[in-house]
């Protein structure tokens, strides 16, 4: 990794608003390819992206994009495309006019071709002449992405670009991002949903409460997450009989009887546990009434990574 040139460098960056610290002493580099910026809502992802995009100043530290400071450096946007989190658009403009505005403001040569290519890349040619006020949330997101791509930037900074998109649109989005990454572009995508970037990002940055909790290869971090013990609450027709069987399972670390009579099972391998419970219930002739995985919130997942790192 170190032999490659980092396109985005964040060095000891902090950002505070009055007494509230939004980003706390964060450092990392982003290289060509796709990087996911993950974290629960309020983790500081948007603030960090705003500083990288030059929309917000840093309180401390330094941000460099393509070797330049992005703040008050409009010329840098010739090589950088940014899609902000807010889905605000000029609703009186058609999709095509919106992309054309972006092309005009970027001074794109061969404008008509560039607009056509950008709109085609997000698969919205059919809706391009409709006012954006009539678009669905997902369509607005895609047309905004087209506007961010129209000048063929080297660096793409996308804040929650998958908000409001359906599964088919996500697949198309992933394909487009992979094509751009293969062409040598640097793409930074933020999301609060781990699975959104699972198949997309080679490396990830994990933000928790304004701090960088983990950074690096997605698989390594995912493996860490998979190792964490999961709590599962089970309610059945005969909890005691089921508990005696559960204790003997390899996937189970511990079993406890909760005050309300339900079973609290701690497991490091939920997938195996799920299969085993059904089999065990059949063997013991116990009817499963509820199987609820607990601790599934992103906050708990990220907190686990923080505590482990």
């Amino acid at each position, binding site marked *: 990794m170190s032999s490659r040139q980092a396109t985005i460098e964040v060095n000891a960056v902090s950002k505070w608003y009055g007494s509230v610290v939004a980003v706390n002493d964060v450092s990392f580099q982003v290289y060509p390819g796709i990087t996911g910026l993950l974290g629960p809502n309020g983790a500081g992802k948007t603030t960090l992206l*705003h500083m990288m995009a030059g929309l917000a*100043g840093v309180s401390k530290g330094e941000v460099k994009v393509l070797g330049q400071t992005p703040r008050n450096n*409009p010329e840098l*946007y*010739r090589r950088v495309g940014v899609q902000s989190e*807010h889905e*605000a658009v*000029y609703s009186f403009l058609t999709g095509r006019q919106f992309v054309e505005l972006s092309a005009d*403001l970027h001074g794109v040569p061969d404008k008509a071709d560039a607009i056509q290519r950008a709109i085609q890349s997000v698969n919205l040619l059919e809706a391009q002449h409709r006012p954006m006020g009539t678009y669905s949330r997902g369509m607005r997101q895609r047309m905004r992405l087209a506007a961010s791509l129209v000048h063929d930037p080297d660096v793409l900074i996308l804040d929650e670009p998958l908000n409001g998109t359906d599964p088919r649109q996500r697949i198309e989005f992933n394909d487009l991002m992979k094509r751009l990454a293969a062409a040598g572009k640097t793409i930074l995508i933020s999301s609060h949903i781990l699975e959104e970037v699972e198949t997309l990002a080679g490396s990830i940055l994990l933000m928790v409460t304004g701090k960088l909790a983990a950074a690096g290869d997605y698989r390594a971090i995912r493996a860490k997450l998979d190792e964490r013990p999961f709590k599962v609450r089970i309610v059945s027709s005969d909890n005691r009989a089921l508990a005696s069987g559960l204790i003997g399972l390899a996937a189970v670390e511990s079993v406890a009887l909760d005050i309300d009579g339900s079973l609290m099972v701690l497991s490091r391998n939920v997938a195996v546990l799920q299969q085993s419970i059904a089999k065990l219930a059949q063997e013991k002739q116990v009817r499963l009434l509820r199987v609820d995985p607990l601790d599934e919130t992103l906050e708990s997942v990220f907190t686990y990574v923080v505590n482990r790192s």
Partner: protein
Amino acid sequence: MKALIKLSLRQMTGRRRLAVLALLVALPIVLAVLMKVLNTNDPQLHEEVVNGVLGGMLISVIMPIVVMALATAAFGNELEDRTLNVLVLKPIPRVTIVLAKLSGSIIVAAPLVVIAGIIITLVGIEGAGLRGVLAAMAALLAGVIAYATVFTWAGLITSKALGFALVYVVLWEGLLTSFLTGVRYLSIRWWTLGILHGADSNAFPNFGQNNIELVAAIVGVAVVTGGFFYLTVRRLQRMDVP
């Protein structure tokens, strides 16, 4: 720049907004015509048109309201709709963005106000002539530009820009200048009147009003326009854009 001005114009020229503004500027025109028709031999007509319709109505009330409605929305709407980042994330200097927004307000407001002023001058002021028309044009244009610059700045720094503009127009220019005449030197309304009177004192005599000197009025407009333009650019450079 052209694309930005075009965008600003589209944002500002909603049919309903234009209709209301056109109706507003039509009021003093209709009044001047009626006064002319109904009081042909009134020796006070000249004074009533200059002080009452042109000064009291168009310059003091309608011009600031028209400019206020447009200029406070120039950045205000972008901030409210969170679209400002669409503009600032482009390779355009911030000064160009401010210039385009300001131009949009002026391009819409100036014709409305200036044409109204010219019609009132031609209809209501006997022997106003070309000089009178040019004086009205220059004064009203200066007023529109100065108001537009101040209100554009207000739209960028506060979500309550309309309130700020109303306080300035009603309390500062309307109330305070009538008690403390020195405050007139810090008033866009009085600079406009000063230019009007200074450029053609025959068509627009004082009629007992304490108008400020032409030079002071021109300097006032220039300083406020330049100063607030600079403040707006600086604000746009330094603010965290949502």
